[in-house]
Structures are given as structure tokens and as C-alpha cells.
């Protein structure tokens, strides 16, 4: 392995024995660590546990929906399961997944920094996450919550007799974890870049995480205060959103979606960043239209704030404001389309490798496209009246969040796994996993588009018998999907011990993270790197490598 201009890897050889994993040992060396890489590992473990938990709830729901009658679970249990599935997956898996795991690990290295700007706050974020998760688990153990992840009033404040307070409090706490992570990333990007690393030399993953952090920073506090008001109302019995006491439940919805719509972009923007990294690395090419892709991240982050009431088109908002929000929603589609087109164009004359991360990302582009265009359906007012609150919406947002965000998370996990663990995963099994996920996903969620349009409402425990065939297809797909998600868990753990040792740059990719050893040393680089090249500068690499060699 030679890779010259960037950094002479051979200089690091003696240091390779000492890395962030083996620099010190013991329980407290992890629990009190301020090393962003170790905190990323802590997140990876805890977030994976929550993913399995959320997946369990999903599986139970799909099993229940095999038959129309609702005979496996009681209505209350089913209602709790879809609520907990939503809360666990959104607040405890999707939002922290890419930023807090991959972002935490990779972002400072991509910037050539020794750590994030505020390492102690980074650790605090993880502890806040854990406190929120523990509260969430406590709620699950003592009986759960049945409001739906949206906590709509007045159901949540006056009518539900489940643990609404505990759940909202957990979400409130984990919100601060998200805010502090975003704050840390933004300051780091502004103040900790290596010498020579100008804005337009930044990898697109950094741009995407930066845009994500903006959303986390500016949207989450509004959710926090909304949940505070909800908790006050529930505890003190005063009417902030209670219509009987003069409150307006639609105000709750406005404030909730002011956060929760941009929250979708907290999930998908980092996924887009991973996609850009992987597409560049596995075509060995600069991303087509780099600046357009970079700025489209910021555009999505901003425009994402202007569209929230498209969740409320039939809720009783004024017809005129519905039009405004529909109009603005159409704008968000543009930067997303820009990205899809540019990734596609990057393949042209590339050197396309069909390795696992790329397989995931090719799947991601396809599924995200479907999720995106069905978003146009929902933003078109007349159609939304029919399909909102049906399975069409369920299918749409799973295409974005699972087909988009989770596929990209797995892509990123595989792409950076050699860097994180120092080992290669078994390629054949990984490709099989990617294929299973893709097939299983489509089988699960494509029938739900049809289900939605023929009229099956979401959050139904029992349903009309004519919907059964499509539901059975969906459950069958979910089983395949579950196997697809289970495989990586097994082979990634396996690879920790038995995987082939990875060199500093197993993919032949460019980027600062591939110039340091795998796993990286505690302070990331043996000396502060000085950047003199653009992002994805593969021609320079070609020159540097002289004779090509296999990877």
C-alpha cells in the first residue's frame, strides 16, 4: 500500500501498535473518555441496542397485521408498540445514528483535528442520551405509552392514561444530547480545520453533517419547549393546548412539526453525506458538481424549516396557509433532486466498484428517489387530502428513513469499519446482507403505497379484510429485512476478532481519514496534517501512486 502526497503512511508504522483502542484499558477509560472515537463507539453500542429494541416492536406489529382481525396483540398493546417503535427508532436510533456514531468518529479526522472542540460536552451528550434512553426503557418496563410518537394533544394531555410524562421527559433529555452534538460539530468545523483545509476542500460528509447540525441546533429547542408545555399541562392540569380550557390543539401541531419536519432532515442529510463519500470512493472520482451538492445540503437544511404544516393539510389550518406550505414544500424537492442527479452523473466514466458500501448506496439512491417522489404526491394538496394518515404516508417516510437513512448508515458503517476497527468484514456475507436488505425493504414497503391509496389508515390494529393480501406481503418482506439487518451484526462482530487486518487505506480512497493508521492513534494524526489538495482529488492520487496496484 502506497499513498504518497497526502501523508507518508510509512512514517507511522512504528506507532501503529498504539491506537485509540489499546492506548489504555479499563472500564473508566471508556466511561470517562473524552476521545471522540471512543465516544463514537459508546454511541454505536447504545444506539445498536435501541435499534434492536425498535426492530422488535416493528416485528411484533408486522406479525399482528398478518390477519385483519387483530388477534395477536390487544389494541392497547398494539398502540403501545407502534408508539414505542416510532419513539425508539426516531429519537434513539435515527437521529443519533449517523451524526453521533459516524460523525463523531470521522468528522474530526476528516478535518485534521485532534478532537471535537468540546470533548467534555461530547461525553455529556452521550450521558444525556443514556439518561433519556434509560427513562425510555423504564417507561417501556412499567407499561409503555400509547399516544403515537407525535404526542398529539388533547389525547396525550387529557385522555391517555399511559406514561406520557416519562416518555416526553426522556425525549426532552435526549433532545439536549442532540443539540449539544450539533453545537460541537459546528464549532469544530468552524474553528478546528487543519491548515489549508478551506471550505471548498471539505469532504461532502462534513458539509452534510454541518447542515444537519444547524437543523439540530435550531429546531430541537422548539420541540423541547413544546414538550415542556405538554408536561406542564399534563402535570398541573392547566390548559395550554386543551380546547376545553381555551387552548388550541393545532398550535401544538404547529410547534411539534416545526421540529419534527426538520428532524427528517436530521436523519437524511447525514445519509446524503455518506452517499457522497461512498460514491466518490467507489468510483474514484470527484463528485460531479461538488459545489451544487455542498450547497444543496445547506439549502435543504434551510428550506426544511419552511414546510412543516404539510403534515397538517387536513388538520384544520387555513386553506391559504395550506397553499403556502404546499408551495414551499415543492422547493425542498429541488436540492434533493440535484443530489440524486449528481450522484448518478458521478458514475459516468468512473471506476465503479461493486463493493458492499457501494451496493448499499446504489440501493440508497434508488429508494431515496422513490421516497422523494412520493413526497411530491403528499405535497400536492388535493392528493394529500386522500392519502394523508394512510399507509401511503407510512410507506413514504419509511422509504426516506429506512430506505434512505438506514441504508446509508449501513453503507457508512461498512465503509469506515476498517478505519474504526482496523479489520475488514467478510465481503461475501456483507454483499448478501445488502441484497437481503434491499429486497426485503421493497417487499415490505412497496405494498404499503398501494394499501394507502386504496384507503387503509395508519395506526390500525385491525383492518378491513380486503387489505390482507398486501399486508401479508409486507410482513413477509419484513422477515427478509430482519434477516438482512441481523447478518451485519453477526459478521461485524466476527470480524473484530477474525477479520483480515486492514491497512490505512483499504479502499484506495482519498480523504484525511485514510492517511492515518487504522485504527487511528488517540490524537488521530501523528502530526498535524497540512492540506494542499481538493476533496476527492483522485487524479493527484493517480500521479502519486504511479503504478496502480490492486486494493
Amino acid at each position, binding site marked *: 500500500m502506497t499513498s504518497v502526497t497526502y501523508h507518508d503512511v510509512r512514517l507511522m508504522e512504528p506507532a501503529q501498535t498504539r491506537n485509540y483502542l489499546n492506548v489504555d484499558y479499563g472500564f473508566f477509560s471508556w466511561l470517562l473518555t473524552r476521545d471522540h472515537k471512543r465516544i463514537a463507539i459508546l454511541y454505536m453500542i447504545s444506539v445498536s441496542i435501541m435499534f434492536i429494541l425498535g426492530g422488535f416492536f416493528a416485528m411484533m406489529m408486522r406479525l399482528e397485521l398478518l390477519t385483519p382481525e*387483530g388477534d395477536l396483540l390487544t*389494541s*392497547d398493546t398494539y*398502540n403501545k408498540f407502534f408508539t414505542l417503535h416510532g419513539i425508539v427508532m426516531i429519537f434513539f436510533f435515527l437521529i443519533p445514528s449517523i451524526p453521533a456514531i459516524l460523525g463523531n468518529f470521522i468528522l474530526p479526522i476528516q478535518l485534521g483535528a485532534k478532537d471535537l472542540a468540546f470533548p467534555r460536552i461530547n461525553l455529556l451528550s452521550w450521558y444525556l442520551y443514556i439518561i433519556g434512553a434509560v427513562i425510555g426503557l423504564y417507561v417501556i418496563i412499567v407499561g409503555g405509552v*400509547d399516544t403515537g410518537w407525535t404526542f*398529539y394533544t*388533547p*389525547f396525550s394531555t*387529557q*385522555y391517555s392514561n399511559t406514561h406520557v410524562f416519562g416518555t416526553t421527559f426522556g425525549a426532552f433529555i435526549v433532545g439536549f444530547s442532540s443539540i449539544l452534538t450539533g453545537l460541537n460539530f459546528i464549532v469544530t468545523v468552524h474553528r478546528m480545520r487543519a491548515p489549508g483545509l478551506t471550505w471548498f476542500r471539505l469532504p461532502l460528509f462534513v458539509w452534510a453533517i454541518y447542515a444537519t447540525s444547524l437543523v439540530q441546533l435550531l429546531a430541537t429547542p422548539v420541540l423541547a419547549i413544546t414538550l415542556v408545555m405538554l408536561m406542564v399541562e399534563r402535570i398541573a392540569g392547566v390548559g395550554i393546548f386543551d*380546547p376545553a*380550557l381555551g387552548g388550541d*390543539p393545532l398550535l401544538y401541531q404547529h410547534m411539534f412539526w416545526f421540529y419534527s419536519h426538520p428532524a427528517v432532515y436530521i436523519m437524511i442529510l447525514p445519509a446524503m453525506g455518506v452517499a457522497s463519500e461512498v460514491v466518490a470512493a467507489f468510483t*474514484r*472520482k*470527484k463528485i*460531479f*458538481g461538488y459545489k*451544487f451538492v455542498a450547497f444543496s445540503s445547506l439549502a435543504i437544511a434551510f428550506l426544511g424549516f419552511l414546510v412543516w404544516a404539510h403534515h397538517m393539510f*387536513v*388538520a*384544520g389550518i387555513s*386553506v391559504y396557509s395550506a397553499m403556502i406550505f404546499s408551495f414551499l414544500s*415543492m422547493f425542498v424537492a429541488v436540492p434533493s*433532486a440535484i443530489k440524486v442527479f449528481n450522484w448518478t*452523473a458521478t*458514475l459516468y*466514466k*468512473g*471506476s465503479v466498484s*461493486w463493493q458492499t458500501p457501494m451496493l448499499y448506496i*446504489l440501493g440508497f*439512491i*434508488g429508494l431515496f*428517489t422513490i421516497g422523494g*417522489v412520493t413526497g*411530491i*404526491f403528499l405535497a*400536492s*394538496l*388535493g*392528493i*394529500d*387530502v*386522500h392519502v394523508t*394518515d394512510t399507509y401511503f404516508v407510512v410507506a413514504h417516510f419509511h422509504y426516506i428513513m429506512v430506505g434512505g437513512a438506514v441504508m446509508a448508515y449501513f453503507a457508512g458503517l461498512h465503509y469506515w469499519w476498517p478505519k474504526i476497527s482496523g479489520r475488514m468484514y467478510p465481503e461475501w456475507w456483507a454483499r448478501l446482507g445488502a441484497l437481503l436488505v434491499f429486497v426485503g425493504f421493497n417487499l415490505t414497503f412497496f405494498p404499503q403505497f398501494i394499501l394507502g391509496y*386504496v*384507503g387503509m*389508515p*395508519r*395506526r390500525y*390494529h*385491525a*383492518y378491513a379484510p*380486503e*387489505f390482507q*393480501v*398486501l399486508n401479508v406481503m409486507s410482513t413477509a418482506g419484513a422477515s427478509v429485512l430482519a434477516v438482512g439487518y441481523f447478518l451485519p451484526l453477526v459478521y461485524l462482530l466476527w470480524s473484530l476478532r477474525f477479520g483480515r487486518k486492514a491497512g490505512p487505506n483499504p479502499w484506495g480512497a482519498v480523504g484525511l481519514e485514510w492517511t492515518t493508521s487504522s485504527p487511528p492513534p488517540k490524537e488521530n494524526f501523528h502530526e498535524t496534517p497540512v492540506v494542499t489538495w481538493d476533496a476527492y482529488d483522485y487524479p493527484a*492520487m493517480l500521479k502519486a501512486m504511479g503504478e*496502480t496496484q490492486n486494493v
Partner: protein
Amino acid sequence: MIALVAPFPLFPEQASTIAPQTDALFIFLSVVTGGMSLLIFLTIFYLAVVYRRRPDNELAQEEEAPHSLEIAWIIVPFIFFMSCFVWGSWLYFKISRIPDNPLEVYATGKQWMWKFQHPTGQREINTLHVPVNRPIKITMASEDVIHSLFFPYFRVKADVLPNRYRTMWFQATKTGRFHIFCAEYCGTSHSGMVGWVDVMEPTDYQKWLAGGSEGSLASQGEKLFQKLACNTCHTEDTTGRGPILKGLYGSRVTLSDNSEVTADENYIRESILNPQAKLVRGFGPIMPTFQGQVSEDELLKLLAYVKSLNVAPALSRREPAGEPVPHTPAKETKR
């Protein structure tokens, strides 16, 4: 439209005037976005195969991104998105605007049932009888949480809110039984809050109407009006202590702060439940609140009565005015 023959439904039945229009937009969108997506998938697949990594292309050739291409794939989709917006909004206005002379029905959502009341006095639960080819206007409110009245085969849906009237309409084009669903999650038996709308030929509908009823909704409202002694103040002439209600519905009312409002359903509702909120100019804040004293069903009856005062010339029979029943201003009920 096509009734697709399959072991399971691929497309919902079209049973209202709106349905074909929603479907037209839906099919337009499906074709355009489906075609676009397919093109992208094929391109990706083609490029990924043709430019797959081989020993002779270990490194890619660099291509400079032409700005014209970027601009093109910003502008072209944008035009398409805007056409979706215009078409969708046009349809939304059609769905929102209630046609003239509709047949009125009143609906109440309650955990976990739909209650319907007809102006002629019929009441039904989870079933709604309506005539075919006639616009039906539904005025609705919820007794507890937010529900959503959803007629999938009519392609219309509207959330039903507590403490506020909302309206929706449809005009069925086929007779038969069609689903009613609650589309907004409302608690334990949300999925049991379903029913059927029974669309009938006008003659059958008349026969159904002739069935049992406790008198028209407005007349039930009138009885309630007297029982609650509203008529002691709201007299038919200017001698009363309250405003005249005849001709009130739909008119412009000048309030004590000189602002003007339209006396629509929500105004009448608020004036019953919270009379001090919007005082008519020239009248004192003497009316007690009826919050917690009248149910949602009774409110709808009173509303129907007040609305009926517009249409019919004033009924000449006048009840002998008894002693005004003193009302204790009820403190608002709280849970």
C-alpha cells in the same frame, strides 16, 4: 375508471365527483415520477455496469461538471413540481369549497364511534345514509380527542376537532356501501372507529327518511331552546335582553369593540359556550355560559335551530313566557 381485477384491490373504487379528479392527478404524478425514477434507475444500472472497475480503469477519468447541465436539472424538475402545486391546490380548493344547496348532515366524533344526525331528526351511529348525486355537507365536531372522518372511496378526509366546527362535503356518484374510517389516531379502539356510508337512490332515501324520527333537528333544537329558557332573552322582537337570532346565521355582526365578525357555525358555538368572548354591541355581558351544560349533540340541535330561523318565516306560535329560569354561571368543567 378501471376496476382492476386482482385477488386484492390495487385501486380504490371511485364513488364521488372528487374521486376521478384526485385519481387523474395521482395517475399523472405516478406516470411522470415513475418514468423519471425508472430512467434514473436504468441510468445508474447502466453506468455502474459499463464503468465497473477493471484493471484498465483503476482510476476514473475526470469530467468537469458543466453548469448548463446543473441548471437544466434544477429548472426542469422545478417546472414539474410547480405544475403539481398548481393542480393540487386547484383540487384542494374544490374539495374545500362547499357547493350551493347541499344536504346538511351533522357528525360528532367520540371515542370510538361516529354519530350522525340528519336535519330531519334521524340519528345513526357508524352508518350514514345519503342520497346519490346530491352534495352532502357535513358539519362536525369532536367530543373528546382529535378524530378524522375519512371516506376513502370519495377521496375526502378532514380532521374533527374538539370545541370547533369544521365542514366537509362530498357528492356520491354511485349507490352502495362504502367505508368510513377514522384516520387520526384516537386511542384504544381507533381501528374500531369505522363505519359505512350507505348511498341510496333518492326514492329509497325518501323512504328511509320516512322512518322513525323524533321530529326535525331544528324542532328538537327549538324545544331545547325553550327548555334552556334561551327564549326569555332572545325574543323575536327588540324587547329582549339578548340579540334577535332571526337572520343571524351568515350575517355580519358588530361587536362591542366595534369589530365585525361573520356569524358562522363557530361564532354561534362560541356564543353559546363562552358568551362573553364576542359581545354584540349594545348588549351587556349577562348571558351565562353553557359550557358543560349542553352536549355536542345538543349543540348541533341548537345550531340547526338557529340556522333554521333564516329560512322559514318566523313561526307565529309563541310560547307563553314563563318565569325566567335563573342560571348559575357554571364554572368550566375541568378534568
